[in-house]
């Protein structure tokens, strides 16, 4: 089960509001490569993974993504709090303001609400982990675009750089998990070639569950 800790994973204290920037950054809250999407990906895939390592990596990165979700929500909130109607108008946030006021709503930069269509759990360990590596790359790329867009805002950029760096670490760990799963599947193939008896399948199942 999950427990909430009343702390952010990395400190965020943005003093200068900037609603326009919030309009783009919200994509990492509820966009197609955003944190809630990543978390749902990994937490959905972890159940049926064939080995302890990839279960752990999916569980633990899926958990860290929830901390990032809170961080991105904090950025959006601090960039928009106390915004005047004039600032909301100037930032082009009228449509957002109409439907959500100053709540933080999971949507993409383009205004599409978060959807599980972009969550991926394929029922195939290799496909899942390769998808996850791509997801981390896409999230990294998104953070880099957001860093480009926030060049004038050092406080925001500092946090975005931290989040970008975490995506790189996650990519690395998923790569290692993938290698472990591939090795595991290779082992099983060798094992089945050396045994041709009809009990082979049950031995295989046993071996899988021991991993």
């Amino acid at each position, binding site marked *: *089960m999950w427990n909430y800790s009343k702390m952010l994973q990395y400190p965020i204290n943005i003093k200068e509001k900037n609603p326009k920037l919030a309009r783009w950054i919200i994509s990492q809250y509820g966009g197609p490569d955003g944190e809630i999407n990543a978390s749902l990906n990994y937490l959905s895939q972890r159940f049926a993974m064939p080995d302890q390592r990839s279960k*752990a990596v999916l569980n633990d990165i899926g958990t860290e993504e929830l901390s990032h979700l809170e961080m991105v929500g904090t950025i959006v909130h601090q960039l928009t709090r106390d915004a005047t109607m004039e600032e909301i108008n100037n930032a082009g946030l009228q449509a957002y303001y109409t439907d959500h006021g100053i709540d933080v709503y999971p949507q993409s930069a383009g205004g599409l609400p978060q959807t599980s269509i972009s969550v991926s759990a394929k029922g195939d360990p290799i496909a899942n982990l390769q998808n996850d590596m791509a997801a981390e790359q896409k999230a990294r790329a998104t953070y880099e675009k957001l860093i480009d867009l926030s060049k004038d805002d050092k406080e925001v950029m500092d946090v975005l750089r931290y989040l970008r760096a975490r995506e790189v670490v996650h990519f690395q760990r998923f790569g290692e998990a993938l290698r472990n799963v591939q090795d595991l599947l290779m082992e099983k193939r060798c094992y089945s070639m050396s045994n041709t008896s009809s009990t082979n399948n049950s031995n295989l199942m046993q071996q899988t569950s021991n991993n």
Partner: protein
Amino acid sequence: MYYNCVTSRDNSNMNKAELMNQLQSYAFAINDLILYLDTHPNDETALELHNNYANEYRKMYEEYERRFGPLSIYCPCNSFRWIASPWPWEGGNA
């Protein structure tokens, strides 16, 4: 309302499943009491109950980790045991 009967006791003769069951009971009671206290922050009885349960929970949590391995990533360990035991969805607490 909950029985106000929390007294510190020796759990060393409890097995893994019994200890987990007790831990889950405390966790649930604490969770439910917090929801109540969120909207009734001045209720002294609820506060005292929460305090008692939280103390017991902490002790029991530490005992479980000491005897059966880490429950969270913040458990200090000399050897890496985080992936050694089955996950909750695999019946890891039984």
